[in-house]
């Protein structure tokens, strides 16, 4: 019996199923796209993304989003931005390759930093995904900047306990001692292997024979010359050992110098335990303003690093976590290809936004973003952003086209009323008033240069009640209360993993001179006390090591000098005797 391959009567039900599928898509496509956009956006940014309404118009390749809210990844009850409406023109053909190419987005009614009622942070709470990892990394990065706290409320200088295990001199001294011992053993072994005894004995014997020999005793003369050759070779070996010993001694001396450096570091560490900064003006600025200045750097770095993760340079396959589903998500691997479209490309976005949205007269600004893509090497041009307005100038350039990415961004915003904040370590509040804020960041490969500045001419100072009975508090108050100009600048530069932070302000000198007048002696005494504690812990370890190194050095040099002197002496005597024997005497 012939079996039919196809079940033609099933075509009808299958078509009906297909039509039902299309109908469901038509009914629920907007909802599905909205939910997926929220999910992907939340995953990408590490903060909750909400969309009130999303409409897909595939016929015209347009997507309209209304009521977009993106929560801040850092602040619990603050939005990063809100947008009234976004209209995107989508290139439909690349969708067949699962690529999203947006020709143009027009965003209207953008607002930044608006309040929200629920905590919208996702990465900060879960720590999952790329955003979670980047957030954790930037937090750890920011935590490396340890700023000593100035305790002025009571004027008391407190000293934390000094843990000997955290001093770097002690392990360095132990290591140097071990190195000195091993050098001594190595040199002794090298010295023993020279076997100078037989050479010296045979040379002495040859000299003795020459003393009783006559000019015609050729065998004795030959013995003498051979003994001189042996002495010269032995001397060469001693010279080689001497070079090796000198090199080793240099290293040991460097180790001793390293102990001094380690001691310096330990002093600095011990000084950091004093809850008081140096009375030098630049460090006053760091103590007062660095904790606040690090935050903008941390946030700018978060977005820069996020951009690097999502927009990596090069064309190698890249694996990212797959879509969440009941089954294991696995990994999605992207395979960029030269002269092909990237998986995501936003050619151009025109933004219009409001600053001071809550004020009576909110100001309208405009910006433009171009070339935002997941594969910059394919697009071939950097991502650029610029925005301008009456009191705003902002720009950014993310150049991930080459192997070493370069990210640059900067913004100057004027007329922003910054909130009053507690000055760290001081029961004093500062209300900067309407200020001009500048932030600039350049991340070239793994080198960072960043600058954050606040300038205000209407700064106001407020005393906390805890300040009432503090002499030093009064001094601080007298130093700063009359100053209405505020000019703070923080600079960050160096390798990304460990950059240098410098903070200065126009208050530094005023505060420093007042503090120096009152606290100078007490600080010096406290610092001396810490130095003494460090010395007490270190000297017991460092003294014997220093003596040991000197002993090893002296011993090795003396041994070599002694043997060299014996060799030289014997050689001189042999040569003198040979000259005497072979001198031609005229009648």
């Amino acid at each position, binding site marked *: 019996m012939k*079996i*039919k*391959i*196809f*079940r033609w009567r*099933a*075509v009808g*039900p*299958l078509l009906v199923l297909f039509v039902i599928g299309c109908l469901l898509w038509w009914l629920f496509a907007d909802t599905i796209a909205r939910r997926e956009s929220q999910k992907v956006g939340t995953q990408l940014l590490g903060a909750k993304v909400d969309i009130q309404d999303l409409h897909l118009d595939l016929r015209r390749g347009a997507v309209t989003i209304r009521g977009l809210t993106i929560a801040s990844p850092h602040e619990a009850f603050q939005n990063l931005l809100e947008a009234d409406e976004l209209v995107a023109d989508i290139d439909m*053909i690349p969708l*067949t*390759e*699962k*690529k999203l190419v947006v020709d143009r987005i027009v965003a209207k009614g953008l607002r930044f930093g608006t309040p929200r009622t629920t905590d919208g942070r996702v990465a900060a709470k879960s720590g999952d995904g790329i955003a979670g990892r980047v957030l954790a990394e930037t937090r750890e990065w920011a935590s490396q900047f340890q700023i000593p706290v100035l305790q002025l409320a009571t004027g008391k200088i407190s000293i934390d306990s000094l843990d000997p295990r955290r001093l770097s001199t002690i392990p360095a001294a132990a290591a140097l001692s071990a190195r000195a011992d091993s050098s001594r053993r190595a040199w002794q072994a090298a010295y023993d292997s020279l076997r100078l005894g037989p050479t010296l004995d045979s040379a002495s014997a040859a000299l003795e024979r020459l003393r009783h020999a006559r000019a015609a005793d050729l065998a004795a003369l030959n013995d003498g010359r051979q003994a001189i050759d042996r002495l010269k070779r032995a001397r060469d070996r001693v010279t080689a050992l001497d070079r090796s010993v000198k090199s080793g001694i240099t290293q040991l001396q460097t180790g001793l110098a390293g102990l001094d450096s380690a001691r310096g570091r330990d002093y600095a560490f011990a000084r950091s335990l004093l809850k008081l900064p140096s009375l030098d003006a630049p460090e006053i600025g760091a103590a007062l303003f660095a904790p606040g200045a690090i935050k903008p750097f941390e946030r700018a770095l978060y977005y820069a690093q996020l951009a690097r993760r999502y927009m990596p340079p090069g064309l190698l*396959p890249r*694996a990212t976590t*797959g*879509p969440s*589903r009941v*089954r*294991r*998500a*696995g*990994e*999605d*691997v*992207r*395979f*960029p*290809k030269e002269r*092909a479209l990237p998986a995501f490309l936003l050619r151009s976005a025109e933004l219009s936004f409001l600053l001071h949205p809550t004020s009576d007269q909110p100001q309208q600004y405009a910006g433009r973003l171009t070339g935002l893509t997941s594969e910059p090497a394919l697009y071939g041009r950097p991502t650029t952003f610029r925005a301008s307005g009456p009191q705003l100038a902002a720009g950014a350039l993310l150049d991930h086209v080459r192997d070493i990415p370069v990210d640059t961004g900067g913004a100057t915003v004027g007329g922003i009323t910054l909130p009053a904040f507690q000055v760290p370590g001081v029961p004093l509040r500062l209300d900067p008033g309407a200020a001009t804020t500048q932030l600039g960041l350049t991340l070239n490969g793994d080198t960072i240069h960043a600058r954050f500045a606040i300038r205000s001419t209407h700064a106001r100072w407020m005393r906390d009640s805890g300040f009432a009975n503090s002499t030093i508090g009064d001094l601080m108050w007298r130093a700063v209360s009359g100053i209405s100009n505020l000019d703070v600048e923080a600079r960050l530069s160096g390798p990304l993993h460990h950059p240098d932070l410098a903070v200065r302000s126009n208050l530094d000198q005023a505060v420093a001179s007042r503090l120096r007048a009152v606290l100078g002696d007490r600080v010096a005494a406290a610092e001396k006390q810490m130095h003494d504690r460090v010395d007490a812990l270190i000297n017991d370890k460092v003294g014997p090591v220093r003596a040991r190194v000197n002993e090893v050095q002296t011993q090795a040099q003396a041994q070599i000098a002694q043997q060299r002197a014996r060799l030289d002496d014997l050689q001189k005597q042999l040569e003198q005797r040979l000259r005497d024997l072979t001198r031609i005497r005229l009648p």
Partner: protein
Amino acid sequence: MFALIKLIQSLFDALHSEGTPGQLAAGIVLGSFLGLTPLVNLHNALIFAALVLLNVSFAGGMLGWAVFVPIGFLLDPLFDWIGHSLLLAPSLRGLWTSLYNTPIVPLSNFNNTVVLGSLVFALLVSLPLFVATRWAVARYRVTVGERVRQSKFYRAVTASKVYNVYKMFRP
């Protein structure tokens, strides 16, 4: 419990249907693709269309699907490993790059490690599964098939009343 009864019903439906052992085996193989690979993917739409349009056992397909779903879950780590090895193999990079940049193909999610790994696994298993199932069904029918059909258990399971009663009393 409901799923188990449905599974047993599917099994008996398939084993005692009028289809040939080959048709039943082909249905189970197609069903295994649905069960082993993540369901919501383009290739499964094609598999489902084939199950409907080709003259294979639909009940067998449902049985294969039901049986292989838990196996798929269990073997997901293996699929992930297979997919990872294949997708990141330098020798295959050209193939994947070209497929990834070809219209429609990326919609199949072949670039997902679990999807690719499970699909490759299902493809490799399909032929042995087909041969083994066809032999097993043929053997079943000539040996114990008729006795089972006459058994009370078979009648109880396949009787729609039992199922309806169960439906009435299920929580």
